[in-house]
Structure formats: structure tokens, C-alpha cells
């Protein structure tokens, strides 16, 4: 007989629900609070959540009348994690065009394409990711070439923005996504050199309207010029998806020349350019698991990429490479593996919290824990970077998130069936 027990396991944290719970007030007792700020790690600390905010951090805090009290037994509390760059809310199921909205294939360069207009806060994936401790993420478009003679995208994939995992898009967090490198050559007439030629032309259409080409030779629409103008004035990050060291150097030069707020995404060979990236204050959003030359742009792939970039003073954040959003909860594992390969543990947690919050302009809301800030918190069953750890409780803006998803509903339904069978 297999060990099929009859109770859901509560994994240690036992919540006491008072009879008349005051909406919103929660006291987490005796947690190890990783603030991911200069305040460091606060041992044996109570966290009081009230009115959506972290009302108090301290010892022996009193629970307000009606507050839910959670005994943490010293377990870690961290800021909610960053889910990386993905098609969250714009790709419900892979390879199904009716629920995939991440790619514009009009054959023309349209930086004004803003994928957040398609964002579906009801996506089942949000609930799955929340249960993995993810509370904020960057929604990003992807440029794809056209199939067999039909138009495709261009190297400017369009814009995305940060969303909170309760489904609220974060205001003023738009970013522009640009593809560079060998895998983007199909979007730029067959050569990566043309990627920089096309970017130069688009920039000059914005910067030098008088020298502009006739209409039929322009890359951008008036709306596109307006959009690009904003990024050229540094209002938001321009995320370059690029891996090869020489291409990263080109991006660094472009960013310097045009005063772009550049971010490197991918960055498989970024470690080889680490001092230049650090000097240019260009952060890198990487998947630290890349250790194989999946393309010739990544022949320098190494599991020490994150550790080397961090050591050189480059700000790093983690994201899966594959923009499919279903398993973005795995980003936590990538941080643990980076730590196993030389990254300090604290830097691993920062790459999931404060660093991405700073890179994408939501540091006042996300990524660290301090009194008075919105309460986006996760209580973990153990080391948050460990694969055997699960999120026990998740709070977004002080709201306790249901630890339920379509997946848990499926699991519960079929566990019943399995138990009935085993009992036969």
C-alpha cells in the first residue's frame, strides 16, 4: 500500500482565522524577512500587513482585532518574485493562433505596437505563476518572421509593460523590445549588419525629420516616430535580445551614441563583455542555465555567466529564455542553479526581486520589503531558491492570494479518483 494520506499537507505554516477577520489585516509572526534592501535579513521578525501595505516590521507586534495571524516558525519571507520576460496573459496556449497575441506580422516596423492591449488578466497562467511566488512580470512581444511569403515582423517587436500578478498592469512601465543577432537575421533582410542599419534609419527618421525619405521609403508611421522619440528621450528601457559578445558591443555603442536606456536580454556571452556593460550601466536579464552553444551566437555559453557578471558589477535579473509563460515559476530554480555555480545567494535573490524592479521602473512598488510599501510578499516553506521549497502564502498589495489554480483543481479531482482506486 502506497503512502496515500487523507489530508492536505499544510507544510508547517498554520493559519489561524479569527471569527471576524478584519479585511486585509494580517500578522505574520516570527519570520526570517529578506528585505532585499540595505536593511538586510531580519531574523525572528513579525510583519504586519494592513490596508494593502507593510504597516510594521518588528518584534512582538500586536495583532489588530480581527487580523489573521500566521505563524511562520522562522521560515523565510521575501518580496514577491519577478517572473521574467514572457508572453504572460498574451499567450494562453502555445501554437494556437486564436489565443496567441504576442507577435505582429504586418511586414512593417511598428514600435507603436503595444502588446498590453491584448493582456488578459483572467489567463489561467497567472494563478499558476502566483502559486510559485511570482508577483510581477514583464509582458513582452516577440518578433517572428512570416511563413512562406506572408509578411512577418521586424527587429522591433513592439512594446510591453510590467504587470502585477493580480492582473493590474503597472502604469508607466512600457519597454521597447528589439531583436539583434543571428536568429533575428530573417527579420532584417538576411544580415545582422542590417539590424543596425535599420535602427539607424529609424532613429534618423525621428531625430532628423527634415532629412526624411519619401513616404514609401520610410520605416515608421507618425505614431511609430512618436513612440520611438519617447524611448530616445530615455523614458523607458529598450530591451535588446542579443547573445553574441560582438553584437552586445554593437548595442553598447548604439546605446552610448543615442543615450538609450538599454537592457540586454539573453546575454549568453555577456560575461565576455562584463566590464564594458558595467561601465555603461547596462543591466543583463539572463537565463543562467544557458551552458550549451544552442546557436553560434552562444558558443561562449557558461553556467558561470551570472556569477561573472555580478562579480564585474553588472546588474543582473533572471528570466527564462523561452517567452512561453506557462512555466515562469521555474525562474526561481534558475537562481538556485546560478548560486550553485558561484553566485552569492543574496545576489541570486536580488536577481529575482530588487534588480528587475529597478531595471523595469517598479522599484517603488516591487522587489524589496520596507515599512510603508505595498505588501507584495511570499512566505516560503524553506529556502526560496531551493527546488523542494514551495510558496505557502502569497500577498499582492496586501491581498492574500488563493493558493489555488486550475492545476490544483485538476489535481484535487484526480487525487480523489486515485484514492478510491487504491482503496479497492
Amino acid at each position, binding site marked *: *500500500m*502506497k*503512502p*496515500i*494520506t*487523507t*489530508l*492536505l*499537507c499544510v*507544510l508547517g505554516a498554520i493559519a489561524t482565522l479569527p471569527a471576524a477577520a478584519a479585511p486585509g489585516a494580517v500578522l505574520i509572526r516570527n519570520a526570517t524577512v529578506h528585505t532585499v534592501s540595505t536593511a538586510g535579513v531580519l531574523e525572528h521578525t513579525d510583519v504586519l500587513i494592513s490596508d494593502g501595505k507593510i504597516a510594521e516590521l518588528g518584534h512582538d507586534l500586536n495583532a489588530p482585532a480581527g487580523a489573521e495571524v500566521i505563524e511562520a516558525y522562522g521560515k523565510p519571507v521575501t518580496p514577491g518574485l519577478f517572473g521574467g520576460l514572457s508572453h504572460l496573459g498574451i499567450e494562453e*496556449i*502555445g*501554437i*494556437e493562433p486564436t489565443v496567441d497575441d504576442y507577435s505582429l506580422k504586418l511586414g512593417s516596423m511598428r514600435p507603436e505596437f503595444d502588446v498590453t492591449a491584448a493582456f488578459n488578466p483572467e489567463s489561467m*497562467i497567472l494563478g*499558476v505563476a502566483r502559486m510559485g511566488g511570482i508577483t510581477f512580470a514583464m509582458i513582452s512581444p516577440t518578433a517572428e518572421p512570416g511563413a512562406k511569403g506572408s509578411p512577418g515582423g521586424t527587429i522591433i517587436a513592439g512594446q510591453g509593460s510590467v504587470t502585477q500578478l493580480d492582473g493590474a498592469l503597472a502604469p508607466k512601465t512600457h519597454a521597447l523590445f528589439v531583436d539583434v543577432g543571428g536568429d533575428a537575421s530573417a527579420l532584417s533582410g538576411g544580415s545582422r549588419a542590417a539590424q543596425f542599419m535599420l535602427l539607424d534609419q529609424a532613429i534618423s527618421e525621428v531625430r532628423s525629420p527634415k532629412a526624411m525619405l519619401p513616404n514609401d521609403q520610410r520605416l515608421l508611421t507618425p505614431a511609430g516616430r512618436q513612440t520611438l522619440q519617447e524611448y530616445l528621450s530615455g523614458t523607458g528601457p529598450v530591451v535588446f535580445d542579443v547573445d553574441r*559578445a560582438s553584437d552586445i558591443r554593437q548595442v553598447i555603442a548604439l546605446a552610448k551614441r543615442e543615450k538609450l536606456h538599454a537592457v540586454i536580454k539573453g546575454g549568453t*556571452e555577456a560575461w*565576455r563583455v562584463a566590464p564594458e556593460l558595467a561601465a555603461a550601466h547596462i543591466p543583463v536579464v539572463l537565463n543562467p*542555465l544557458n*551552458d*550549451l*552553444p*544552442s*546557436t*553560434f551566437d*552562444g*558558443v*561562449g*555559453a*557558461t553556467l*558561470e555567466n551570472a556569477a561573472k557578471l555580478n562579480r564585474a558589477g553588472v546588474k543582473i535579473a533572471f528570466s527564462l529564455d523561452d517567452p*512561453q*509563460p*506557462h*512555466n515562469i*515559476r*521555474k525562474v526561481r*530554480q534558475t537562481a*538556485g*542553479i546560478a*548560486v*550553485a555555480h558561484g553566485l552569492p545567494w543574496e545576489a541570486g535573490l536580488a536577481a529575482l526581486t530588487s534588480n528587475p524592479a529597478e531595471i523595469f521602473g517598479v522599484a517603488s512598488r516591487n522587489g524589496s520589503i520596507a515599512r510603508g510599501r505595498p505588501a507584495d510578499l511570499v512566505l516560503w516553506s524553506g529556502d526560496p*531558491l*531551493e*527546488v*523542494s*521549497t*514551495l510558496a505557502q502564502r502569497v500577498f499582492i498589495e496586501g491581498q492574500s492570494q488563493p493558493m489555488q489554480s486550475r*492545476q*490544483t483543481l*485538476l*489535481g*484535487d479531482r*484526480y*487525487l480523489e*479518483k*486515485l484514492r478510491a*482506486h*487504491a482503496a479497492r
Partner: protein
Amino acid sequence: MNRAVSLMPGKRWPQALGTLILAALVTACAATPAKPSKSDKTVEPTASTQRAAPSELYPSTYRVPQNAPTLIRNATVLTGTGTRLDDADVLIVDGKIQSVGSHLQAPPQSRIVDGKGHWVTPGLIDVHSHLGVYPSPGVEANSDGNEATSPATPNVWAEHSVWPEDPGFRTALAGGITSMQILPGSANLIGGRSVVLKNVPSVTYQGMKFPGAPQGLKMACGENPKRVYGERNTFPSTRMGNVAGYREQWVQAQEYLRDQQEYEKKHAAGDKDAKPPKRDIKLDTLAAVLKGDIIVHMHCYRADEMATILDMSHEFGYHVAAFHHAVEAYKVADLLAEQGVCAAMWADWWGFKMEAYDGIPENIAFVDAAPNGCAIVHSDSDEGIQRLNQEAAKAIAYGQRVGLTIPPERAIKWVTSNPAKSLGLLERTGTLEAGKMGDVVVWNRNPFSVYALADFVFIDGALRYDRANPAFTPQSDFTLGQPAAAGVYP
């Protein structure tokens, strides 16, 4: 009682084992013939040469190197049989596990490994890999995993696509992988024969080929075949078309086999006019499945499709060793267990296509919990194969969440003995029982952790990976001179 074991081609074992023992003892004898007798000068292909066991063709040239005995002392040992031994020793002699226990004596000139604080497991086995057939770098020129030009290609053999210089073999070794099944892709209903490789460096795939391992047959359900061919407006474009496609093939195979058997009967009776059926290398493969010589591994996501496939296997009288991917295995865990079918699964992949929409992270734990269930953790990924132990760790945690408590000594079976069983190799590897291949991993800690790293990997008793000395393992030719050789850094 498990049919996956009972249906193994039992007759071949003594011969295969004999070949291996011979190879181990007489390592210089590179030309040890695997075929029983070549003394007769028959040139004309007979039915019996047509049916030469797959392992005898394109034979393995892998030989176990001479190696000093190894004694690993005072480690936490997960044997792969469901047992955990604390503070235990593992002794490997002549490439084989000699014993596991306490206070073992080291033979003269043994290599001694201090296992204190370390965990020892059987070498990990991945039943679903495309290393070598979809190698790194992923260039079109080396994309050799899917013969997607016809929905039924039982004539192709994955081994003929394997590029041994794929740097992914080496990174998998660092993750403790000692054996793996390389499969064709899933574009076709019947994708072709698989090959089991030992994870040793070699210029040729024959130098990696697991001696005497049965071949597998890759088949695929669902979306992939119907999408690949449906988009071309050719057959099949529906799931019912998929099933009709398999059945047409099995009917042909049955006829082919019957013709062969009739010929053999006549030939044996001295009928000189008897002619063997025209040789067909597609039907050779399928007939070998019907005879139990080739093991079926089937890509299948949905529960209802798995049930259909099982009915089809009854219709034609063969056994499905394992459903691969099987994201809905948890819905039919009882059915799979009853029929002795393993499910090879990911820990947490889901949603990347419609047939993966119902994936849940408790899948592995549920399959494991069914009485006589056979859960396997597989990768189908050059990244995932590097850390099957961590995938298993996730499955343990998700099982725990719903009250299924799975100790490490049980979970290790998902990546060792259960895959070995599905490959027909459990009598040779997959556990640390005496007499089995010396395929052993020494971990720096409990392997079910994100921080776990393999310190040493032994294959047939030979040290193949030493974390403290990465240069000990040769680089693939491809990575030589490249900016960062896979896994080794300036």
C-alpha cells in the same frame, strides 16, 4: 507482476550478458563477434538473418576500460531498489558493483573515495533524449531528429543521425547521466528506432552504444503528426487519421511476419522452392516489435489517447513500455499501472500546446502512488537532462503538498531503475545491486536539491567525470578553440 519486465526478449539476455562479460574480461578483443555462428557460408539472406537481433547490427564497439577497483566509503547510499543506507560503502570491481554495505574491504590498489557527507546513487538514465540527433549548435545542417517526409518511418534508426560531438553529452555527464535513450522526434506516427547510449566520449556512436541493449520504437500520438502532415493537406490530419495510420502499419507487419514464419516452416521442412518474403526494412522493425524484440516508447499527452493506444496494442498483440511526456498520466494512473506501462514525465512543463494544457506538477507523484505504478522522470531537453535529480525533487515537493510523502530512496527510482526497466535494461544497470554495471554517481549532498552537484561519475567502474578536475573529461571536438568550452571556463 510487471509486464514491462516479463515481455522483455528473454532469450537474448544470456547471450548479451555473455558478450558483455567477455568484453569486460578480454578488453583487447575488439572484434568479439556478437552473432552466434558465421561458420556456414550462406550468402542468400534467410529469414533468420533478416531477423538478426537489432543489437547485432551496427554493433557496439564500446569496451569497458581496464580499471582499478573503487571503494566509496561512508556515504548515504540510495540503491535504486527503494533502499537507503546511511554511512555505507559501495565497492566497484572489474566494472561491476561488487557489494554495498558496511566496512567493506578495499582490494589492493583500489581507488578510495571518501563519501562522508556525500550521497551515492546509481547513474541516472534518461529515457527521452535527442542529444546527438538535435545537437548543439542547433543549426539546420545538424537537425537530424525527424524524418518528417512520411508519417510512418519505422525504417529509420536514430543512431544513424547521432553526432557524437554534441557538447550536450558532456554537460549531461556533469548531471550524472550514465545512459540515455536517443529517440527520433515526434513528427511521425512511427518515427523510427531508438538507440541506448552509454555517456562516454567517442568518435563514433558505435563507441557509445550500450552493448546488447534492445532498440526502441518511437511512436507519437496527437497533435504533432496531425499538425505536420495536416498542414501539408496530407494524411493524417486528425486523431482518427493517426489511429488509422498506425493500424494500417500493424496490419502490414502482421502479414509480413506471417509470411516470414510460413517461409521458415517450409524451409525447415526442407522445401527448396520456398522463398522468403521480399525484405522490407520498415516491416523488419514493426515485425520485431510484434515479436517482442523492439520496445515501444510512445509520445502521448492526453489520457484518452493513451487508453486508445493501449486498446490498439491489444488488437495487435504488443506491449507499450512507456508513454512519454504523458502530461495527463495522472488521469489514468490506475490504468497504466494495471497494464504495466510506465509514464515518462516532466516535473512541471505544461500549456505549451493544447494537449499539454492539463499538465499538473503532481503528475509524477500520482503515477508513483498508483499501486504498481511506474513513474519515470525524463528530459526531452539538453538542459533538463543535466538535472533530472532536480526535476524529481520538484515532483517530491508537489507530491508532499497533496499529502503524498515520497522519500529519496523511492524517488531515485524515477531516474534510475524505472527508466532501466522501461528500456529492458534493469538486469544490467539502474540499481546498485551486486553484478550490475558500475554506473555510479557521487553527489556533493542530497541530490534532490538545487545546489546538488555530481562530484564523480563512474560508468562501468571507470571514472568519467570529476568535478574538481573538469579537464579530466575530454571536450567535444566542436568546443575546442571556442570561447568557452561547454562546462569548462577560462
